[in-house]
């Protein structure tokens, strides 16, 4: 068996749920071991082709190595062990936590000493930008991280798609608004999580934007991976 076949073993380990760090290290160690076995067989006077073949046999069948790795639950990625929590719950909770942190930082920056009396234009624009980031950017960012994670761990498409829709829905349910103080009115910062009939259309659009873009990136990366592994 040629040396290059170790590449397919990495892919098989990843698809079996082994964490990338373990799959790559395992194969790197197997390659070193294989090289030592080839040297040993050559030293016994075997021709190179036979030495390689014998070394591969002594190393063991790929199926056995993958099977043995799967028996070690500690080597499996979190996504393979707990797909619902990792793909479904964690990204949505992470998104909500990031939103909460952003709002808290804004509240501290602008309202700790009472509402700003006459905010400069850059403060207004910067705050609006952060608001857009929270409503559109953060859901896309978390969707992107989920896609990257699930592709690198070769997780099943059902978990990835479920996670993407949960991130999209959580992102769409967040709301954020700032009322700047004016003559006779006090400034206010409001942020929350919820759904109203009035916001139904914009909520649907935001959910669709995240879901469609996330899915498009997911299928593109998955397609590229399939071509890379079969090609």
């Amino acid at each position, binding site marked *: 068996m040629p040396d290059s076949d170790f590449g397919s073993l990495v892919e098989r380990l990843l698809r079996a749920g082994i964490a990338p760090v*373990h799959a790559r290290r*395992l194969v790197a160690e197997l390659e070193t071991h294989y090289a030592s076995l080839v040297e040993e067989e050559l030293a016994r006077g075997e021709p190179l082709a036979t030495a390689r073949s014998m070394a591969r046999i002594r190393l*063991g069948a790929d199926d056995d*190595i993958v099977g*043995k790795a799967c028996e070690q639950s500690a*080597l499996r990625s979190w996504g393979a062990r707990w797909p619902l929590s990792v793909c479904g719950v964690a990204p949505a909770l992470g998104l909500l936590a990031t939103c909460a942190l952003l709002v808290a930082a804004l509240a501290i920056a602008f309202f700790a000493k009472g509402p700003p009396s006459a905010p400069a234009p850059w403060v207004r624009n910067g705050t609006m930008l952060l608001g857009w980031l929270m409503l559109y950017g953060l859901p896309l960012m978390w969707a992107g991280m989920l896609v990257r994670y699930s592709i690198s761990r070769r997780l099943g498409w059902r978990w990835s798609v479920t996670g993407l829709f949960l991130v999209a829905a959580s992102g769409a349910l967040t709301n954020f608004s700032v009322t700047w103080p004016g003559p006779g009115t006090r400034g206010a910062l409001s942020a929350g999580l919820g759904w109203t009939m009035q916001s139904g259309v914009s909520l649907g659009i935001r959910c669709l934007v995240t879901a469609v873009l996330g899915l498009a990136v997911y299928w593109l990366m998955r397609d590229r991976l399939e071509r890379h592994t079969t090609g």
Partner: protein
Amino acid sequence: MRPRTTSFTAGVSELLILRLLNEREMYGYELAKAVQALTRRRIQFGEGLLYPLLHGLEQQGLLRSRRATVSGRARIYYRTTASGRRRLATLVERWRQASAAVNSALGGKSYA
């Protein structure tokens, strides 16, 4: 080629690995050789199967590893931790009890 002893990977492997790595640190190829020498080649196994076991034991905190480059080749050396030594003592004790029980059941006759 001799048939493989598939039971090697079913628990005895952990005992042998911990026993050998408790003496001194070794890398995979060296360890495979040591297992064969220790068992007088009576146990045949796919040498590649050692690595998932080593990684698993390391994840359980029973082994620790360090990287080293020797003659331009990267090697990962393993040795037991304090938990590994405790685990080895437990496994040795269990093995002795099981072995004594089986010997007793066989009435001291040789069935080899």
